Structures are given as C-alpha cells and as structure tokens.
C-alpha cells in the first residue's frame, strides 16, 4: 500500500487567486491540487497525495496560532504518513507558513516533513532546524527542479533510509552534526584542503564561517563641540557584582547602566564580566576598557558637548552573530532615540 502524503499550498498555487484572495481561510481538498500533480508523479506510486490543505498567505500571517491549529486539524483528518509543503520559492509569507506547518506537523503528528524555499526566504532562517527545506530557485520557474528533490527526500524518510549530507540531498543545512569515522585524520584533511586552495582547486570546508554583512559608513560628526557621545563596549564592564548576570561567554543579553554623577570608574564601583581575557587590569581600573574618566574630562573642557550618561555593555566572547546583531540593533535604536550624535565602541 502506498504511503499517504498531505500537501500544503497557498491560495495562489491552488488556483484560488492572487493577493486579493490572500485572506483565504484553511480548506482541505481530496487528492492533489496544482503543483501536487507533479509531486504525485515524482512520488512514483510508492506514496500518494491523499489530500491538499490550502490557506491564504495573509490569513496565515495574520492569525498564525489559529491558522496553524486549523491546518493541523485538516491535515490530521487525512491520517497522513508524511507532509510536504510548498515549495514557496522566495515568497516570504508563504515560506514562513510552509515552515511553520512543517514544524507543527513534526511536533504534533510526529511524521516526516519536507518543504522547499529559495535560500534568502525569511522562512529558511526561522525553520531550517525544524524541517528539511529543499533549496529552490527564487521563482516558480524552479518548480520542475524542486519537485523531484522534495519527492526523494520525503520517500527516503518514509522508508527509513539514511538521509545524506545537505549538498548530496539538496536541502539547506539543518545545523545537525553527525559523528562518523573519516578515512583521514583532521591534520591530513586540513593540509589536503590547503593544497587545493593553493592550487585554486575547489574544496569544501568542514566548518563554514559565519557571513558578516556590510553597512555603508555614516557621515562624520560636523561639530564635535555640539555633539553627544556615547560609550558601548563588548569588554564586559558592568557595575560591581554584575547585577544582570551577563554571561562570561556566549552572552544572551546586554546591560544598560547609568553613569549619572559618575566621574570615573573604579575597582570599587565596576568590574568586567568577560571570561575571555585576563580580568586583572580591567578590574583594577575599568577605565582601561570603558574610558569614562577621559570622556568626563573632555566634556568639562568643552571638546564635546555631552557625554551620554548611559552606557551599553555585553561580553564579546563566543557570542553568537545572531545575538550580537540583535543587541546592536536594539542599542543603536536606543541611542538614536536619545539623540546621541556618535558612538565609541571599545572591544577587548
């Protein structure tokens, strides 16, 4: 008997309508609809699309919890063995819905799921750990390439076959590490990789580095004597006792502390929470990391108009790029709201 698959698609791919029908409520239909016909063919008789659940992208985005519940109920009625969603290509709301449906199905029904998206779809970052997301083109022109890859991944899961590496199977890395015995030790693999790099030959890293974005430089301060300058640090300077318990490494938060009436930092008032460097010198004189004494002096001398009396601090020690980015965005917004002119960031 063939495995039972339910397919989730949006109003557009169901042929209901475009943006004007994006508030379409969840609905179940028997059998395959739209791209499900090609998917059904690719499943080759070993699995069959027994039902399709359709939901408008805006309805889903505006009523996430409720929509997820309704869709899950409709899916469960078909008693499926697996669920396929999309592919959503570069459609953000659709991708988010596909990812959320797959995640809910995996958690609640405990059956395999597969979806497909373009790698820049916001649904990728949100759900790549929760489901297999096949890497697709950015538009529906990539349908014929995406369908067989998605079909193969769902069949392998249904049959309990081992799933290969992301690049072999065509899905976006889920961040899962699997232990295996390599033929060569790490040192040999590293040298092999290096030699390939020197020769200009293609090689695959075993540990991809995070990708950092770039921002255009902001215009300079026009008149320093009229400027309010703020201090921000990743050196972990905090009020003595670290009241908010900022972690010594892999910080999950930043601190925001007043310097009203503070002329200089001292070993009695402040210390560092950073666990990645010898804290002796910073604890002895925290101005060595956060130069409050000099900022106050420059304020008195009229070199700057004002030293912003709140400083922002976190520990830059194994802190994830995602957290750092979030801290940065929040701190920047707060400084802008406080009409700060420019910022000095210090790092250890």
């Amino acid at each position, binding site marked *: 008997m063939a495995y039972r698959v339910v397919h989730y698609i949006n109003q557009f791919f169901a042929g209901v309508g475009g943006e004007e029908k994006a508030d379409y409520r969840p609905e179940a239909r028997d059998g395959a609809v739209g791209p499900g016909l090609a998917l059904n063919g690719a499943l080759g008789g070993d699995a069959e699309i027994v039902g399709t659940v359709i939901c408008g992208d805006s309805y889903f985005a505006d009523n996430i919890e409720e929509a997820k519940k309704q869709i899950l109920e409709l899916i469960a009625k078909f008693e499926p063995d697996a669920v396929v969603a999309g592919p959503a290509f570069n459609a953000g709301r659709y991708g988010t819905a596909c990812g959320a449906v797959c995640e809910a199905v995996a958690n609640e029904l405990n059956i395999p799921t597969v979806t497909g998206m373009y790698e820049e779809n916001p649904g990728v970052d949100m759900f790549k750990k929760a489901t297999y997301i096949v890497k697709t083109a950015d538009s529906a022109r990539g349908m014929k390439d995406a369908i067989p890859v998605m079909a193969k991944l769902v069949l392998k899961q249904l049959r309990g076959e081992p799933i290969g590496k992301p690049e072999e199977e065509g899905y976006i890395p889920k961040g899962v590490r699997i232990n295996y015995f390599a033929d060569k030790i790490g040192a040999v693999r590293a040298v092999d990789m290096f030699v390939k790099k020197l020769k200009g030959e293609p090689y695959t890293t075993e540990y991809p580095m995070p990708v950092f974005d770039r921002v255009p430089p902001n215009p300079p301060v026009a008149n320093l004597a009229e400027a309010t300058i703020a201090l921000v640090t990743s050196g972990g300077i905090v009020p003595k006792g670290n009241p908010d318990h900022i972690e010594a490494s892999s910080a999950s938060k930043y601190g925001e502390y007043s310097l009203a009436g503070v002329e200089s930092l001292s070993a009695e008032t402040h210390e560092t929470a950073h666990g990645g460097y010898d804290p002796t010198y910073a604890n002895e004189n925290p101005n*060595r990391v956060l130069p409050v004494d000099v900022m106050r002096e420059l304020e008195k001398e009229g070199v700057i108009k004002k030293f912003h009396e709140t400083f922002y601090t976190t520990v830059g020690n194994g802190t994830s790029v995602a957290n750092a980015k979030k801290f940065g965005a929040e701190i920047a917004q707060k400084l802008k709201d406080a009409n700060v002119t420019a910022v000095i960031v210090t790092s250890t």
Partner: protein
Amino acid sequence: MPVVHVCTIVPISLTVGANRIVPAVAIPHPLGDPTKTPEEEKQLRKHLVMKALKALQTEVEDQTVFND
C-alpha cells in the same frame, strides 16, 4: 550616527565590518597600560579617545583604520 571601533585585534574588526577603526593597546587593557604611571596612562587613554573622536569627524567611504 557614526561609530568608531577602538580595538586591539584590527583584523577581527575588519572582518566583522567596522567602518572606522582605531587600534588599541592590548586585549585586556585596550585603553590603558599598567606598566605606566597613572598620569602617563591617563594621557595615553586621552590620546586614544581623541583619535577616536577625530575618526568620528572624518569622512570615510570604505573601512578605514586610523593609525598614528
């Protein structure tokens, strides 16, 4: 709102994308030097902060390291 990054490991600052960079003294004391007298050390700190302020007043089009 321009930003200047005062840090010791300039290559990291360049990698993560800072646009105005002022090299500092050492990892555990970027704006200080415990081998100097307190007065000398404060002068050094003031010198670095002034450099940072100068960087903030400088128009840059790309990542720029402000050496002496």
